[in-house]
């Protein structure tokens, strides 16, 4: 893969660099994609990350189906208790009293039970749904918002660029956790607002990234040609500018999913985000904090679950970056 010799020390981070499209950008994009995928396939750590993500996503979908469509059929029949008591189903709690508080690991409860006698493994499994949902949806919000703002700013330049990027920088200047907390205090403490809030706070990083790419793509001959041929700005941005600026954004998005999972876990830990009794990893850690002495293990598992999931996204993101930026491999 050829790349320009003008590798000036511009202080950009590796993710903001990669080769730009040429005149036959469609052909090149296709070659680029298959090349990228073949590179990725040869990277065992990236594949390991992908496996983690696929497994977690499948688990999340299954628990979603069970919770939303089957009304916790599997949870009640196989995990919680056959003599189901509807009032305890949603909290994934054994209906027969609080007989098994801080139960040790056993065949029935491999990871033991928590301070209300609930099976920790079942709650961990159901927590997957929240983590995956939060990761993908909030990143999608940030991605769409950031791509729109960044490409419009970069494409038009001038005062549009100035106004949009200053606004984005302002958003960036408030530490994101603080911003999301303030946002949720204003609009509501539930998962939807957590996802929207986290999504909004990621707009700046996506916008900055895509803008930096758009500014160079804008000057390419084929954009000039499209403009001369009378193609409307909106179509130029959607069909040419964004696709040709997208590679680093994809890397960023993959990594951002992991970050979003961490942030929402933190929010739930602070009492914002997912509210009890809905099982989420962050909220499990929040309640575990009150029982560090009687049951240290209770606080270990949810953290490990978060760690494993986020490692998955980071491994895949790193792999994508290496595959897209041939210079790192050289």
């Amino acid at each position, binding site marked *: 893969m050829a790349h320009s010799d003008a590798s000036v020390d511009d202080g*950009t981070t*590796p993710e903001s660099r990669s080769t730009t499209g040429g005149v036959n950008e469609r052909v090149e994009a296709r070659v680029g994609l298959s090349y990228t995928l073949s590179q990725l396939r040869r990277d065992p750590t990236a594949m390991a990350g992908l496996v983690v993500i696929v497994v977690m996503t499948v688990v999340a979908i299954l628990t979603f189906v069970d919770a939303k469509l089957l009304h916790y059929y599997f949870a009640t029949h196989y995990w919680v208790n056959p003599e189901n008591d509807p009032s305890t189903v949603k909290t994934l709690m054994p209906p027969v009293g609080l007989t098994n508080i801080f139960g040790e690991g056993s065949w029935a409860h491999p990871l033991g039970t928590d301070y209300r006698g609930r099976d920790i493994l079942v709650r961990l499994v159901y927590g997957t749904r929240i983590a995956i949902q939060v990761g993908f949806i909030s990143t999608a919000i940030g991605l769409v918002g950031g791509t729109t703002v960044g490409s419009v700013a970069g494409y038009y330049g001038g005062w549009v660029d100035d106004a949009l990027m200053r606004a984005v920088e302002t958003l960036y200047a408030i530490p*994101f956790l603080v911003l999301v907390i303030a946002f949720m205090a204003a609009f509501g403490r539930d998962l939807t607002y957590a996802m929207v809030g986290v999504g909004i706070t990621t707009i700046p990083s996506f916008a900055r990234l895509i803008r930096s790419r758009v500014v160079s793509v804008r000057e390419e001959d084929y954009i000039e040609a499209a403009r001369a041929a009378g193609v409307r700005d909106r179509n130029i941005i959607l069909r040419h500018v964004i696709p040709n600026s997208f590679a680093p954004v994809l890397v960023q998005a993959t990594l951002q999913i992991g970050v979003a999972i961490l942030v929402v876990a933190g929010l739930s830990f602070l009492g914002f985000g997912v509210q009890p009794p809905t099982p989420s990893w962050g909220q499990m850690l929040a309640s575990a904090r009150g029982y560090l002495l009687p049951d240290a293990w209770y606080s270990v598992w949810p*953290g490990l679950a978060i760690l494993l999931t986020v490692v998955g996204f980071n491994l895949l993101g790193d792999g994508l970056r290496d595959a897209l930026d041939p210079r790192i491999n050289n």
Partner: protein
Amino acid sequence: MGLARYTLRRILQAIPVLLGIATITFFLTNAIPGDPIKIMLGPSPSAQQIATIRAQYGLDQPVYIRYLKYLWAVVHGDLGTSIHFTGTPVLTKILQRLPVTLLLLVSSFTFALVTAIPMGVVSAKRRNKPVDHVSRLVALIGVSTPDFWIGLMLIILFGYYLGWLPPTDLVMPWADPATLEHATTRLDVIVTSIQHLILPTITLGTLQMAAVTRIERSSMLEVLSEEYVKLARAYGVKETTILRKHAFRNAQLPVITIVGLQLTAALGGAVLTETVFSISGMGRLIITAINSQDYPLVMGTTLFFGLTFVVGVILTDLSYAYIDPRVSYGEEEP
């Protein structure tokens, strides 16, 4: 453009950003449902009481008037009076708590840089050797672990199980020895302070450590493959000299960028770390403020979080000059 003018320009550029932060926080805070006055006065206040308090805090005026008044007051260094800590000026409260958070930030960034820079350099130098794998694994786990969970694990292990370090609270090194139990001299206070600081520092610093290690490694690898490094090798310059004199300094630009960007994550992390260790800093102050719907305090703390970040970014930009004389101040910011 000289350094002084550049500094001045960066400070001036920060003003609209701070104005923006004040605007965002003002309108977000105003959207918070519920009435702080009712929380303050208890379940059944008289209409007279409510009206008095509303007038006292200016809540009886329309939003845009309050917004303009707020901005005017902020410019004059007046952040209002806290509702939760009755009668205490918000600025006073923040200035009480700010040093705690700053101490935590400084110590965690010091921890991060002191561990990450050598780790990244060694990792790049011994690429694909065992030490590189270990350091990459540590960095990967570091960026993937929730910081508050690290805190919980450290508390269990070192606070409760081994009993080596205090699991909660933070003692400031300049605290009065008389206020502490086992301290008589300044040295005792400092030792206690360090003991208290270790676990929160690791908790907050791990993410920074991991992020800096990763960027240090990739930046060093890039510089080590540059022509001038190859040339130096061809001339028979010792490898350690190349590393120290030629490669290291040039590799630090992206590292500084990342350190600056990590500041926003660290400020958020401070909220979590202070919660885990029950430390009374800015992070817990903002949580208290939001939970008690203390509008002025929410706005004040958010503004200060933004201010801390803006100052940090300016310092980062200025340190480019120290590291890389090629950076030109006339152009767009690097």
